[in-house]
């Protein structure tokens, strides 16, 4: 088709696409380039290139702001939350997908409807609850809230996938006399790996980027997640733009790395629900 089109049209199409690409990508380049400048150099010409490339800002993040600890906090919270959400979601999804019992579709509708409830509308009682349990300013509160609020959408995706598990495989397990827990662990989980990987990507990048829950439940600087730390601790130094940009840049690296490494999975997951 392309060869039939006039050259001028193709140039126009490219011009539009490239213009949008520049607007899309320039801020990221800006963030990367300016994070290795000194603030004096930066303020002389914010749009220019550094007169020398320095890693001082990253060193400051490492020594003064303990950025490794912040990364560690986020990673640990996210991994624990993912473990909890999977333990809660997998048995429920299997029951919805493959078991027959009265009230199944009604209960499933409740789970689906829960997806529509905005998180902020039930945060106040949770804050009161967590402070009674002594979990405010403790990673436990963030882990629990992340894990449980992710359950409905995780069930939604897993149910769709588990419906595709052939019944013969499950029957074979039953004939071998393995228990229900064994069925889940040895048959259902391995067959759901693609879905679980998709959930891992979506849940953990979502949590990595989350501000609201950790902002409210964590107060000590040494417990904060990376995103919250950038928005609160680093913001105290908000006249030092290059330092702030270095922090933003470091916060962006994990999601971008995950995206580049696992593009295929991400596209599949996002498209679910949008077409058909």
């Amino acid at each position, binding site marked *: 088709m392309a060869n039939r089109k006039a050259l001028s049209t193709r140039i126009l199409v490219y011009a539009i696409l490239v213009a949008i690409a520049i607007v899309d990508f320039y801020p990221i380049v*800006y963030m990367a380039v300016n994070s290795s400048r000194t603030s004096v150099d930066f303020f002389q010409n914010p749009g220019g290139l550094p007169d020398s490339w320095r890693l001082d800002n990253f060193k400051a993040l490492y020594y003064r702001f303990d950025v490794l600890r912040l990364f560690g906090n986020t990673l640990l919270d996210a991994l624990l939350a993912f473990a909890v959400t999977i333990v809660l979601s997998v048995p429920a999804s299997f029951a919805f997908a493959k078991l027959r019992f009265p009230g199944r579709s009604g209960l499933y509708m409740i789970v689906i409807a829960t997806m529509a409830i905005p998180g902020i509308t039930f945060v106040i*009682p949770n804050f009161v*609850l967590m402070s009674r349990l002594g979990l405010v300013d403790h990673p436990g509160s963030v882990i629990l809230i992340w894990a449980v609020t992710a*359950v409905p959408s995780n069930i939604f995706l897993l149910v769709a996938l588990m419906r595709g598990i052939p019944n013969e495989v499950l029957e074979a397990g039953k004939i071998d006399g393995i228990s229900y827990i064994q069925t889940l662990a040895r048959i259902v989980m391995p067959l759901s790996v693609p879905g679980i990987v998709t959930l891992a990507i979506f849940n953990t990048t979502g949590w990595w980027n989350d*501000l609201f829950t950790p902002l409210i439940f964590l107060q000590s600087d040494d417990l904060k997640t990376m995103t919250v730390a950038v928005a609160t601790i680093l913001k105290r130094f908000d006249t030092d*733009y290059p330092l702030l940009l270095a922090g933003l840049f470091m916060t962006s690296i994990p999601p971008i790395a995950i995206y580049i490494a696992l593009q295929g999975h991400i596209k599949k997951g996002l498209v679910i629900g949008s*077409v058909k």
Partner: protein
Amino acid sequence: MHFRTKESMTGYLSLLPAFAALAAIVFYPMVNTFFHSFTKWNGAESHWIGLRNYTFIFTNGELWTLLRNNAVFLLSIPGILLLSLVVSVLLFEEVRGWRFFRSLYYIPTILSSVVVGMLMKMMFSQSGVVNQLLHALGLTDGKTEWLTQVPTAFMVLVFCFYWQTLGQGALIFLSGLSAISHEIFESADLDGAGWWQRLFHITIPSLVPTIVYFTVTNAIYCFIGLFSLVYAVTQGGPGRETTPIDYMIYIKAFQTPDQLGYASALSIVLFAIALLASWVQIRLSNRFQD
């Protein structure tokens, strides 16, 4: 029959952990919020004050400012819809490197709204690179204070929203386009339909379900997803002029003493809006299913 009851028991036991957790972290707190929306509450003690929180919300004029702020974002959706459609249709022509463009456009979508907001705040600051560029092009004096005035503060926020949403739009519209069967395009070619005819008679109509999905999910986002962006860029200011409902709930609950009852009532109002939006989504997606 014995087997069926055993299967039922297994089913209920499998659901138990998930439902117990949801009951503790979502359902009970939701009921609790509803109850406290009729009280004056400081977190420890609450006094029943009937509908006073609600009458206050609806009569003090603040709600209309909040809703206006949500509406500004809502009204910006057609713009990003159009932009995403144009980009997707152009990319779908399989220009060389379309995969590269698609990946590039998607990168802003995976960044945290906090990162996007703080980055744009710096770029749009008075001595920032946007002013520098506009000055160099001779368009302004290069001293615009973007975030201290209402129309320009919204422009920055909407720019952030667009910047983050284009990648999502391009991705889902491209997959919508690739779901259209090639035979339809080929038979249109045989009938001698031109590019524009094909666009308006085949491409756009086939994309309607995807357009509905994109519009409704972003409309819901405009009511419940703006918190981080507003926190990072304007903190709701100047005054309350860029404060959407969810940010106001945060201010009243966590930044103002003794306003938890009022914040609960605002939460119920937001909940009702979210419910309405989801209902619209279900109705529309059922209609376009077939």
